[in-house]
């Protein structure tokens, strides 16, 4: 009984933490609008941008996912097929975009497409849409096609690692004898047949999973849309920008309808997409035997010229926006001429700061406090939720375990903006004084990261041999002693990975923080970058200061991912 209560409390606390603010926010929005969530979806057309935002969200997400596959599949194929020197470094370089905070990605792409930037200097003007891009826009008759292209390229850049991580291992670990056997058949002589009859069935689930996850990330994109496609609205961006007026009785009720309907529609789409991806991944895990990737790679041999060029281009593509962002923090455009000067002034200003805008040390301190708080809350809650699921599984309550597992994943179907608005409006109902509470942003960050902690720890808990625990009992250890002396050391690598990922995610989190900081007083690094970029640029250092701040954020995030990666690669891990 005591054990059951012990298991139940953290699970209940976690569910309260994630569900209560959202339920109260829903209730408040329903009270203000007088419609239920489904009705609100049908009323989205009452907002001037509602329908356009829905259409654009779907179209750009599908196009982004398609483009990502088109760019990512050849790279994944080449990486998986051939024996590469320093494959670890190549993989790390190609993974960097995916772990980059979205606001940093936006700054990197802005630095690349801006007037006088790299693309503009070779005649590709995606910002002002002149020259080739302008002609293309006129030809296809799509307004702001340059902005859309920039957004799609940024989404593809951001999600390239997803395709590689989903597809490449499948290619590199497939036993070569399978393909050889297929080649022996008459149907296997043609390359096209091998592609459609052999590789497509083998890779289908990985490719579709990559497509779905890229779709999800593009569907809920905010920072990239905000900065690269300023005249376009996705549901996420529209809800974020308009959301400040939501939930106020008798004041701009159409905005409350938009937020209620938009969040419901977005939640339904994300849930469906996650359900599809989950089913495919489950199917994939039972399909075929695999071999060591080194064995498979050696069998094919070293890459030829085309794969080499392809992988080099992809690596350059992955690193260029980040490099240009750093460069933009020291290369300053003079206000009244076309010339530039090299200077560290922006860094100096950024570190000294101003009371109106937090300095880098102030914002970094806030970010680190929130990241630390997020780490503590999400690791403790995640650990106990994972432990409860594991215990339920061991006690033969598989269905209940599955239910708790499913509920713990619920925040994955919520975007940052949805969580931010949920916390904002939910907190208003529960305890308005919390608005003034410095630690409030920890709540949405923990809501968003705890599912990842559960996903990292649960497989590791399942792998622990129960004989260790039995041996502890024989030695007369108490439950606490067995936990501290046996379980914790065995789970240490996964706990470090979970902690580092939680902190990194919290540091880079933008959507929820952006919503909450609008009502609070404490800026994080991503919000500071956004605020600086929104500021009238009378002074030529405003944008370089934003770039310097983004650079610091990038470095902090990468440091945490290096820590996580070291523990994951050397000790294994579930996520």
């Amino acid at each position, binding site marked *: 009984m005591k054990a059951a209560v012990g298991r139940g409390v953290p699970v209940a606390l976690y569910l309260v933490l994630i569900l209560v603010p959202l339920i109260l926010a829903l209730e408040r929005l329903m009270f203000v609008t007088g419609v239920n969530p489904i009705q609100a979806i049908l009323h989205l057309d009452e907002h001037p941008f509602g329908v356009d935002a829905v259409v654009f969200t779907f179209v750009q997400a599908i196009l982004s996912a398609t483009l990502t596959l088109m760019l990512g599949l050849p790279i994944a194929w080449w990486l998986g097929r051939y024996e590469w020197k320093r494959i670890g470094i190549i993989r790390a370089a190609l993974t960097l975009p995916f772990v980059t905070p979205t606001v940093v990605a936006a700054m990197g792409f802005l630095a690349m497409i801006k007037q006088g930037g790299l693309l503009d200097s070779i005649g590709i003007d995606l910002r002002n849409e002149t020259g080739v891009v302008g002609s293309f826009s006129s030809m296809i008759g799509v307004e702001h096609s340059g902005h859309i292209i920039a957004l799609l390229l940024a989404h593809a850049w951001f999600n390239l690692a997803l395709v590689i991580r989903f597809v490449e291992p499948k290619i590199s670990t497939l036993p070569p004898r399978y393909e050889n056997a297929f080649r022996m058949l008459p149907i296997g002589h043609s390359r096209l047949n091998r592609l459609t009859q052999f590789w497509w069935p083998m890779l289908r689930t990985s490719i579709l999973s990559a497509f779905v996850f890229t779709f999800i990330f593009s569907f809920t994109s905010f920072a990239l849309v905000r900065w690269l496609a300023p005249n376009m609205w996705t549901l996420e961006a529209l809800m974020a920008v308009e959301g400040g007026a939501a939930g106020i009785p008798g004041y701009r009720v159409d905005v409350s309808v938009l937020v209620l309907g938009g969040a419901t529609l977005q939640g339904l789409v994300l849930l469906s997409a996650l359900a599809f991806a989950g089913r495919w991944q489950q199917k994939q895990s039972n399909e075929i035997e695999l071999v060591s990737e080194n064995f498979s790679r050696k069998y094919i041999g070293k890459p030829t010229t085309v794969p080499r060029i392809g992988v080099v281009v992809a690596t350059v593509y992955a690193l260029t926006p980040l490099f240009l962002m750093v460069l933009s923090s020291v290369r300053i455009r003079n206000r009244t001429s076309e010339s530039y000067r090299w200077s560290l002034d922006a860094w100096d200003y950024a570190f000294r700061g101003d*009371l*109106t805008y937090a300095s880098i040390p102030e914002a970094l301190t806030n970010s680190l406090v929130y990241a630390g708080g997020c780490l503590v809350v999400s690791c403790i809650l995640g650990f106990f939720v994972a432990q409860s699921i594991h215990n339920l599984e061991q006690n033969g309550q598989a269905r209940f375990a599955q239910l708790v597992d499913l509920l713990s994943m619920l925040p994955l179907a919520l975007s940052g903006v949805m969580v931010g608005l949920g916390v904002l409006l939910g907190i208003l109902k529960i305890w308005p004084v919390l608005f003034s509470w410095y630690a409030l942003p920890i709540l949405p960050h923990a809501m968003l990261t705890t599912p990842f902690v559960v996903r990292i720890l649960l497989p590791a808990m399942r792998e622990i041999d129960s004989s260790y625990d039995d041996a502890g009992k024989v030695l007369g250890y108490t439950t606490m002693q067995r936990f501290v002396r046996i379980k914790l050391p065995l789970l240490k690598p996964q706990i470090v990975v979970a902690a580092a990922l939680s902190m990194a995610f919290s540091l880079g989190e933008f959507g929820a923080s952006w919503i909450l900081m609008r009502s609070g007083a404490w800026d994080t690094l991503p919000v500071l970058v956004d605020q600086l970029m929104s500021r009238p640029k009378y002074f030529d250092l405003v944008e370089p200061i934003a770039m310097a701040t983004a650079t610091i954020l990038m470095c902090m995030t990468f440091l945490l991912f290096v820590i996580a990666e070291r523990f994951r690669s050397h000790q294994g891990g579930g996520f």
Partner: protein
Amino acid sequence: MIRVGFILLVLLFAPLSGCLSTDSITDECVITTSADDKTLTIVTYDIIALSDEVLQEFTNQTGYSIEMIRTDDAGGILEQLLLTKEAPQADLALGLDNTYLQTALDNCLLAPHSATLPDLDPQALVPYAGNMAVPFDQGYVCLNVDTQALEQNNVSYPTTLEELVNEDWRGRTAFPSPTTSSPGRAFMTATIDYFEQQSNMDAMEWWEAMSDNDAIFTSGWTEAYETHYSGGYGVWGEGHIGDAWLTVSYCHSPGVEAYYGGNYTISSALDIDYASFHQVEYAAKVNGGGSQSAVDAFIEFLLSEEININMPENNLMYSVLDGQDLPETDGYRHHSPVPTQPSEITTERIDDEMESWLMDWRKATKAL
């Protein structure tokens, strides 16, 4: 272990709470003040006059430290006050303008100040002269045009708003949205008056015609002026598009351009009767906010000659002190015409009809 985790969580989620006191009733609003904690929390948007040095000086003079809550613009201040009405976070609202003020007053969001005020420009007191809000800067919102672009494209200098629906102006105008931008809201309000006074056309018909003429609508002034306007300083910035020859800004924006550009500007303000709006920005004590003395001290500090006389340079707005004007340095005043006949719409009417104007505007323009 579970107990330890639980206690940690409880400790982590235990917020500090303030206590309310000093209840009174003014004009059907219950006025409350929370305890004085020696910190003045200001909800504002990006007011550049409030530099680090200026705020530090206030702290040195009064002993009150300052915390800032920043919103996107004046509308964000109102929304923040409305959202947190039950538990106000700020002591002072800084930047509500005369298009938002009446809504704040009607919702009992503000409380009276008791600061000692210097002689103020009578013009600054026209929209509101009560003790619930004090003007701290002012300016006229009007249309700005890129004279060079007009010359290069043989387009005549517009003297009426109706001309802007002509083919010459297709895709060449940028307007910040009145739903999310303070200057946008001011200009939209002026158009209501303009079409009532000057034309048989309805204001919303004009906005619809502008939308059909591919006018660019942006969420904020910054995007309209910096990104789209071809005649402003945005041309030197990153990400400039420059597709609009005309936008909404202040009548003294060309003066600011000249001031920063060594008496050179290609931007000019249009003086069209009733198509400009006298905007006044206010400092006001938040109902339920902190110490009266801190708020009063800040208002007096903000209206002191030392600070307010420098508004044109430090905040790019007019001072509200009596007898003050823009400096003549580098053509600041020369390029800043004062409109002959600004809009005369009252704050009461703005408050009564703004919601329906905004709905009509959004329907007419299909913009945010």
